[in-house]
Every structure is written in C-alpha cells, then in structure tokens.
C-alpha cells in the first residue's frame, strides 16, 4: 500500500467520523445529558478499556484475531482502525435504534448492523487498500464474530445514549487495537527485524560480512515470533506487566 492510499483511507474515516459528529451534536442538543462532552464520566468511558477494563488483557476477549493478524504491524493497524470504525458506528446505530428494536430479535438486528458495517469496511479496503485487504483476507469478515463488538452492543449500546455509546465503542476498540499493535510491534521487530516493512535492525544478507546493522554482529531473527503461540506469550507478558503496575486488577485471593 502506498502512502497516498493510506492517506485517502484515513481521510475517508476522518470525513465519516466528522460527519457523524455533527449529527451527534444535533442529537445531543435536543435531549438528555447535561454533562460536558468530555466530563469525567465520559473520559472514563474512553480510558477505562485502555487499561482497567481492557477487552483483551482483562476481559480476555478477541484473542483469536490477536493471534492471527499480529505478525506484522501494518495489518494490525488496519485491523484496529477497522474495528474502531465498526465498533463506534455499530454502537451508535444500535443506541439510536435502542427504543425501536423489538427485543425478541435484538440479537439479529445487532448482527445485521455489525455485518453490514463489516461488509462496508471490506469493500472499501478492496477498493482503496487492496494489498492490505488481501493480507487480512478472512479476518475482516471475522470482525463480525469478534465477541467484543457484540458484547458492547448488548451490554452498553442497548441501554445508553448515542454519545456515550460512541465513546464506549471507540474506547473498547482502541483498547483492543492498542494490545494488537503492541503485540504486532514485538512480533514484527523480533521475528522479521522490520517495522512497517522498514529494516530497522539493518539488512540481513546471505552472509554476515554483507549484512549491515545488528546482523553484521551475528544477530539472527527469531522465527518463533512469527508463529501464533508467541502472540499468546506476548499477550501474557503484557498482562503481567499491566497487573504489576495496576493494583486494581489484582484479585484478592
């Protein structure tokens, strides 16, 4: 994917979100919530899933995709953006419809909303970021089954206002994306010696004499990092680090 393509994609997402934001402000001015846009409660919706209530490291959801698409940084970033998009808009749409959805078919409605958003993302990627969409292949489609998304729709969006749902969606998706990117960073760096495709550790040639950077000193890439088990191990290490810092997460017994 060239830089240009990346830009257009980011632009689209930005455009979409700014449009939605305007709608949101209209919606807000009419009713509910006298709180400020980034009141303490609202900030908490965004920041909680990043640490105290992280979907991957605390709730241990969405592990499957965390294994599958974290071999390289770029697909992980695109996947995170796609999940942010799907989760924020899915949450908003469900929250908008929450007073009209017949409760007996609410799960079906949620699925339809998530599935259509995912198809949209897939179509846009195929048109504007073809190579990334090939790399992610079925995993974009599998966002539908990402239990974080259905979980947030069911647990939060059905009972909360649009703006709060939006924040909750962005927050949870960002928490998911954060872990994805951390894992992908280490896996790509130590597994392939590159970051976003750039050879940050120097160039590895067939012989040590021809190599540059760390490879000239005899450094070797660790192939284990390319395999799925290493993703779990890194997630485990992240959980360890997080719990050693955040006392709230430590169970009493």
């Amino acid at each position, binding site marked *: 994917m*060239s830089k240009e393509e990346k830009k257009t994609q980011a632009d689209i997402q930005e455009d979409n979100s700014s449009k939605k934001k305007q709608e949101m402000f209209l919606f807000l001015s009419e009713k509910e919530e006298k709180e400020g846009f980034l009141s303490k409660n609202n900030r908490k919706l965004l920041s909680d899933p990043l640490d105290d209530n992280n979907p991957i490291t605390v709730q241990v959801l969405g592990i499957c995709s965390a294994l*599958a698409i974290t071999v390289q940084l770029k697909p992980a970033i695109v996947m995170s953006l796609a999940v942010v998009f799907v989760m924020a808009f899915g949450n908003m749409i469900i929250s908008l419809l929450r007073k*009209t*959805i*017949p*409760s*007996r*078919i609410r799960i*079906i*409605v949620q699925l*339809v909303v998530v599935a*259509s958003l995912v*198809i*949209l993302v897939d*179509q*846009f990627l*195929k*048109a*504007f970021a*073809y*190579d990334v969409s090939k790399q992610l292949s*079925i995993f974009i489609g599998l966002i539908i089954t990402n239990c974080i998304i259905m979980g947030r729709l069911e647990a939060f969006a059905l009972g909360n206002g649009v703006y709060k749902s939006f924040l909750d969606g962005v927050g949870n998706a960002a928490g998911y994306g954060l872990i994805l990117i951390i894992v992908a960073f280490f896996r790509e760096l130590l597994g392939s010696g590159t970051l976003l495709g750039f050879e940050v550790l120097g160039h590895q040639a067939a012989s040590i004499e021809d190599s540059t950077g760390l490879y000239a000193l005899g450094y070797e890439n660790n192939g284990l990092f390319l*395999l799925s088990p290493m993703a779990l191990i890194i997630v485990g290490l992240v959980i360890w680090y997080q719990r050693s810092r955040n006392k709230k997460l430590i169970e009493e017994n």
Partner: protein
Amino acid sequence: MDRNSNKYTFIFSIIMVFVVAASLSITATSLQPMQNENVRQEKMQNILSTVGIECERAEAEKLYKKHIVDEITLDNDGNRVESRKAFNVSLAKEMDKPIEEQVFPMYKAQYKGSTNYVIPLRGKGLWDAIWGYVALEEDFNTIQGVIFDHKGETAGLGAEITRDWFQENFKNEKIFNEEGDLVAVQVTKGYSQPDNKSDNKVDAISGATITSDGVTDMMQERLKKYLPYIKSKTQKIAFTDE
C-alpha cells in the same frame, strides 16, 4: 405500537432488510470499478513477476504494455483464436465448459533479451481454488518462474505456496521428462535434491500434502492443454535447427 407484537417485529425486520440491502448494494456497485481495476493490475503484476519483473501494482500496467508483446488465445487443437482476448479469459469460467469450447490463454513476454511464454494455471487445493502462472522459456521446457495464489488454503501450511522459498524451487525445472513426455513438475514429499533440475520434481510443503498434490495436478492438467501448440512450435524449432 407495542414493541413486542408480531406485527411490529415483522415490519421492523422488513424495513431493516430493505435499508441494509439498498445501502450495501449501492456501495458495492459504486466501488466495483475500482476493485476490478485492482484485480486487473494484480493480474498483470503476477504475469510480470513470473518472468522476473518485480514491480509495484501501480506500475504494472505500464510495464505490462512494454514487456508483454503478444496475448495468445488457443483453442483445443492449438490454433489461435483471434475473437477472444487472452487477458479477459477467465479460467474459472472456461473450465466449466466442454473441452471443445474452451480456450487457453497465453502471454508472450520479452524481457532482458529473452522470450518467455506465460501460461495461467488453475486447480483445486485442499479447501478451495488455487491458481497461478508459469513462465516457460523459449524451448517450452524450462521453467523461468512461477507464481501461485490461493483462495482459502490453511495459513502457514497450504498457504505457503504463495511464498518465494517454495516458488523459487520451480526455477529451471523442466516440464518434459527424458522420454519427451509432458509430466510437468511433481511436488514430492521427502524430496532432497533441490539442485537436480532435470528430474521434474520439487520438494513439497510439510503438513500440506493435499495442497502440494493440487499444485502437481494443476500444472499437469493445464500444461497438457497447450501440448498441441507446444508441439507445433518446438517442431518448427527442431526443423530449422536441421
């Protein structure tokens, strides 16, 4: 209206289905041209890469026009069919037709002073279709390069056919055996002579036997279809040699 009544539920779901269907089909239709363009460029990129031209997808079209000097469409007897453009032939569709009606596309490439013939491949892997391109040198025997792709092979096993290390093995392999029969290249388990380029064999991928067999079958099946044309060409070469 009562949100839990049957009537409401039906009306709600009907409206929902219409809205969703409309918005999705509008998006899909409007993005279709761009997606097709990407697929087209990727096809050019793949054809070029078998003859050793590595390029970005955006440059593919320019280089394709420069280096692919002829697009050949053949019928079952090895005669040229001018009414069908080789690049637009979809192998997936062709293979469903009876053999007499099928056409077989081929591309003639000129790069760095050598002429290659690129033949598209398509076959079955373990889960779904696999496809690719093989570039033959002017003798219609030595492989200049191959590229494979797949729809749904297992990541890390069957999907490895798309990797360079696997495709590298095919370079300089021969598709005819010493008796002069077209045997293509066998992807063989436990094979340990990667440097022997005249035995029509390359090493298989461990854990991906069915995909490996699929590659073998695909190459054999597809290359055989070009035998009449290859014969007519190589005989001419042999004739002029005498």
